[in-house]
């Protein structure tokens, strides 16, 4: 096919994907060495640039040249101080992926050389919005899908020589009808002031059986561990989670199984092939020499065999609301 036609289709597919999937957005062509489109989200005044390329571009030398040009971006120009994304268009199957290239964090430009690419579709629209908000200097409230409870477990291990190793288990939970804040009625001004200074009391955050299993099994093995809960509401908090990408990351595996001790052969036969509730959480370790302490951790929780099918289904529902900060990293 004519190269010019391919290029025009590439731009049009990218523009359409943005217009169709990001509600109330305006896409304009611009003459800039850094991006092809300026996209404005009308209701939030969020503005970002989009560079449009074909899907193979990220693996070419031209991409390296383009990154070099971004490093030299003129930050004194106000129109350059916006997040920049790359739209990688597959002209054959007409799919468009979005990657996050340049963010403005703490007043400085931050370049993501290996951007993680997300399919630009309606299902991912909120996630993409929240990513972009975290790349912008303005503190913005996240979309409903972006709001979550953040659980942080500080894990400590004391070696025989007294030396301490630290890791941080961080995971997120979605709000549901059952998993919600238990806000008390604020009765006096003193309590109001306390909240302003210290934030929401820990006992008002939701904490269900799944949170209990995750924390208690860690606590059994690492008795000095502590847990706190926070809310993920604003773009700055998402940015804080993204900073975890600099850590060493290991997966801790969990398995919730029926306790088969004392079960009759008939029950055992019935349970043969029954699924266990398996899941994992990530531990973030700053010091490379502490990685060995926390890697290959496997935790098993046995629960009463009576009513296993209900227990299993209840845990599966809870696990479905569990996510990792890794889902919010904007670089591979």
């Amino acid at each position, binding site marked *: *096919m*004519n190269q*010019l*036609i391919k*290029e*025009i*289709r590439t*731009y*049009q*597919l990218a*523009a*359409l994907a943005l*217009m*169709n999937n990001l509600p109330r957005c305006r*896409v*304009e*062509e611009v*003459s800039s060495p850094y991006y*092809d*489109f300026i996209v404005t989200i009308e209701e939030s005044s969020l503005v970002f640039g989009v560079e*449009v390329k074909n899907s193979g571009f990220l693996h070419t030398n031209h991409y390296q040249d383009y990154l070099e040009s971004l490093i030299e971006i003129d930050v004194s120009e106000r129109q350059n101080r916006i997040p920049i994304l790359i739209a990688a268009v597959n002209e054959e*199957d*007409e799919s468009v992926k979005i990657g996050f290239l340049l963010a403005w964090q703490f007043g400085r430009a931050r370049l993501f050389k290996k951007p993680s690419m997300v399919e630009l579709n309606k299902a991912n629209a909120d996630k993409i919005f929240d990513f972009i908000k975290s790349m912008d200097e303005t503190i913005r409230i996240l979309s409903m899908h972006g709001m979550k409870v953040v659980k942080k477990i500080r894990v400590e291990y004391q070696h025989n020589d007294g030396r301490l190793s630290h890791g941080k288990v961080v995971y997120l939970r979605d709000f549901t009808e059952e998993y919600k804040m238990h806000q008390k009625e604020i009765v006096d001004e003193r309590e109001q002031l306390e909240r302003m200074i210290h934030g929401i009391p820990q006992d008002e955050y939701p904490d269900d059986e799944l949170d209990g299993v995750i924390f208690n099994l860690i606590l059994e093995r690492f008795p000095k561990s502590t847990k706190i809960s926070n809310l993920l509401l604003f773009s700055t908090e998402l940015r804080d989670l993204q900073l975890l990408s600099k850590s060493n990351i290991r997966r801790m595996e969990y398995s919730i199984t029926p306790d088969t001790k004392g079960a009759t052969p008939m029950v055992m036969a019935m349970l043969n092939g029954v699924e266990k509730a398996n899941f994992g959480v990530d531990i973030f370790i700053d010091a490379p020499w502490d990685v060995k302490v926390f890697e290959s951790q496997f935790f098993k929780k046995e629960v009463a065999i009576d009513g296993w099918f209900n227990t299993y289904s209840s845990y599966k529902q809870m696990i479905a609301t569990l996510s990792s900060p890794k889902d919010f990293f904007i670089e591979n």
Partner: protein
Amino acid sequence: MIKNVIGEAGEMEVSIRLMESGLFMVFLLGGKVPAFDLLAEILPVKKEKPHQFLIQVKSTDEPSPYTVRDHRLKTPVPKAKLNELIDRPLPTYVAGVDLSTKDIFLVPAYDRIANYGGSIPTTLKLVSNNRAANIVQLQKLKTDVIDYWKGLDIDNYKPSFNSAL
């Protein structure tokens, strides 16, 4: 970058679909001419000429965009606007776009008898992600445009035209 390739959603849907097999080049006019939205031309193969044609695009994002009785797309073209399109001496077409499915329907607009005041027929259909089916329809369109220009004998008329300039 290439400039002036971004337009309204419906116009870009039609442009993307017409260009998908490399038979046509499409230019978006961005509302510069009220009578039509796209100027398209055949990408010549061998001795073919880049014959041009015009398209007026009408889009709908209605949840039920088809008439019940004869399954026509409810993208009405006002009579005055249709006549303005028909008055152009090039081959002229109306494209109806169902934005929810991205289905596109092309109808000729040659004769002032044509009436698309309420809806347009859905005979010639272009769909997303089915190049094999679309190319058959696009070839029909190409043949239509070539036949029109051949009928005018433009290849002989133009070189023999006695310009007074």
